[in-house]
């Protein structure tokens, strides 16, 4: 079947659904019948609905908090989520293990068994497909806040079916954002097509009057990603989702580190997503934003890690993002303990609550960053529509293939991997090597000047070394990877 940005018909969808549900035993659970899942979802109380809670927070201008968390054994996972809720989480997640993300359910099964026997987690998340709808319902019923699946799965069709039927009212991901940073050999055509299915499923539920939230994964590789790149991907995924009937979308962004640029990124992300949705005729979509605390390498020291978490929270609160995803003091080491995760929530919530009545003031500097991001995003979006000859899905595939849009440090072969980002003198993320990125000469000039000024200040030539130094910088307590820091 040829890829197109076009709503799947109900027949196409139901035809495909049969294959999806047949792909693993838990797919044949009768709880997956729409005749069961639709009334079940309708019976859920409002406070367990992700979409409604987000829309409410947006109205109030508040920033809600969600941690990352997932362990393989169900009872342990429930214990964990309850603890996080008590620590102040407004939403709870279920982070899915890496085998499930690659649809390697056999290996996941092995991991569950061994984790039960050895009594320590051998999987890095909750294997949702292996556990099936009833276990997931149990998880959902054990907490009093909405629940979302967070993963990184290029083909999440069965996963999406299972979680929504279990009353999980949000699913993170998208055909681009869960491919480029999370896969090596999956064609974009395939992952986009599979996420059209996930979105169509949500669209189907919306047609039944059930609100479900969808969240394109914003931070991509989490490593010095220029805002224009991640915002463009988010907008594309919002448009692709809206076409399939999704009505409640949370677009995301991972903290860069320069506060003004970060606030500009969140503002433009909301403004431009709304703008593009309207431009293409999707007038009834509720858009919210999610800010991810620092996504790159963390410092080892726990006091420093808490400081980084708090600094991230400050930026999130000042930007008025609707939601913030938290990290923990164990980030640089491994999956956090329950207690470490709870402390991350407490520190984060303290900051956003304290700052709830404040926002980053409008200023010429903020305007400049916003203008810059908007022009860059428009440039990239134009290029995508141009090579797609008007079709967004085709455009995205071709644009990545030609490197017109390009994500730094991504493992996917479909990504050109030619651009190199680096920070300017104030720590804002700029681009030093453009590859084939669809930028106009004046935009490139802006970036070049900024990076040249930094290189000059550091008395060294522009090279990949800047990028490498910047990758390490935050984990050693700096934002800009200045050469004098070494030794």
């Amino acid at each position, binding site marked *: 079947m040829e890829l197109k940005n076009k709503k799947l018909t109900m027949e196409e969808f139901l035809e495909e659904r049969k294959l999806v549900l047949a792909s693993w035993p838990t797919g044949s659970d009768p709880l997956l019948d729409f005749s069961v899942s639709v009334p079940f979802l309708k019976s859920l109380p409002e406070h367990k609905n992700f979409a409604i809670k987000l829309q409410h927070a947006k109205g109030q201008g508040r920033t809600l908090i969600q941690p990352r968390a997932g362990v393989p054994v169900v009872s342990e996972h429930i214990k964990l989520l309850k603890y996080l809720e008590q620590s102040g989480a407004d939403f709870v997640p279920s982070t899915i293990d890496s*085998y499930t993300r690659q649809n390697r359910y056999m290996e996941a099964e092995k991991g569950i068994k*061994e984790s039960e026997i050895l009594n320590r*987690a051998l999987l890095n998340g909750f294997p949702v497909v292996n556990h099936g709808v009833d276990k997931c319902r149990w998880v959902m019923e054990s907490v009093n806040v909405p629940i979302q699946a967070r993963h990184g799965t290029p083909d999440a069709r069965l996963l999406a079916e299972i979680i929504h039927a279990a009353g999980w009212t949000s699913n993170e991901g998208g055909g681009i954002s869960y491919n480029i940073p999370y896969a090596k050999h999956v064609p974009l055509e395939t992952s986009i097509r599979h996420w059209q299915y996930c979105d169509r499923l949500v669209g189907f539920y919306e047609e039944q009057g059930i609100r479900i939230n969808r969240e394109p994964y914003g931070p991509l590789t989490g490593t010095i990603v220029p805002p224009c790149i991640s915002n463009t991907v988010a907008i594309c995924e919002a448009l692709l989702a809206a076409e399939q009937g999704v009505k409640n979308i949370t677009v995301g962004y991972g903290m860069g580190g320069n506060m003004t640029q970060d606030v500009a990124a969140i503002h433009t992300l909301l403004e431009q997503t709304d703008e593009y949705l309207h431009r293409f005729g999707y007038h009834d979509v509720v858009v919210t934003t999610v800010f991810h605390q620092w996504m790159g*390498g963390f410092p080892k020291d726990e006091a420093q890690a808490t400081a980084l978490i708090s600094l991230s929270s400050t930026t999130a609160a000042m930007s008025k993002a609707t939601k913030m995803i938290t990290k923990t003091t164990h980030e640089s080491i491994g999956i956090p303990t329950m207690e470490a995760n709870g402390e991350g929530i407490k520190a984060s919530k303290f900051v956003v609550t304290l700052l709830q009545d404040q926002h980053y003031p409008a200023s010429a500097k903020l305007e400049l960053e916003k203008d810059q991001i908007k022009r860059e995003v428009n440039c990239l979006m134009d290029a995508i529509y141009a090579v797609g000859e008007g079709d967004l899905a085709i455009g995205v595939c071709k644009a990545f293939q030609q490197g017109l849009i390009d994500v730094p*440090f991504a493992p996917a072969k479909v990504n050109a991997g030619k651009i190199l980002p680096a920070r300017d003198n104030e720590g804002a993320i700029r681009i030093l090597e453009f590859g084939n990125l669809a930028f106009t000469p004046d935009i490139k000039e802006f970036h070049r000047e900024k990076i040249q000024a930094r290189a000059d200040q550091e008395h060294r030539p522009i090279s990949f070394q800047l990028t490498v130094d910047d990758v390490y910088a935050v984990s050693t307590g700096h934002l800009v990877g200045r050469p004098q820091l070494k030794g």
Partner: protein
Amino acid sequence: MKSIVIGVIGADVHAVGNKIIEYTLQNAGYNVVNIGVLSSQEDFINAAIETNAPLIMVSSLYGHGEIDCRGMRDKCIEAGIPHVLLYVGGNIVVGKQDFDEVKKRFYAMGFNRVYGPGTNIDTALSDIKEDLGE
């Protein structure tokens, strides 16, 4: 110029460290054979055989390292490179664990050197030089 095979094992897609290891080892004068992320034990071993590399550096960041690395030494023996050096590093187990314990487990699996979370690749360079007899 000696060859070193690098890559990230299992279903792991953490690509950043891998790209930086490639860059650093190249700068240090090695022929780096980078098989990238999502690589199987076989991928590593085949690359080592093809390029006659005396050292395989396995990265595992995502926590499944323990499952993914089991039996790798045996596979090397079967493949006829019993003495190839095996290093492993990254965040090789799930969560914060006593690292001496973790090291023992990986030594028992036949790894020659085991590196803890956040060991900057620069600090491993001297071990490499020593082991490769330079």
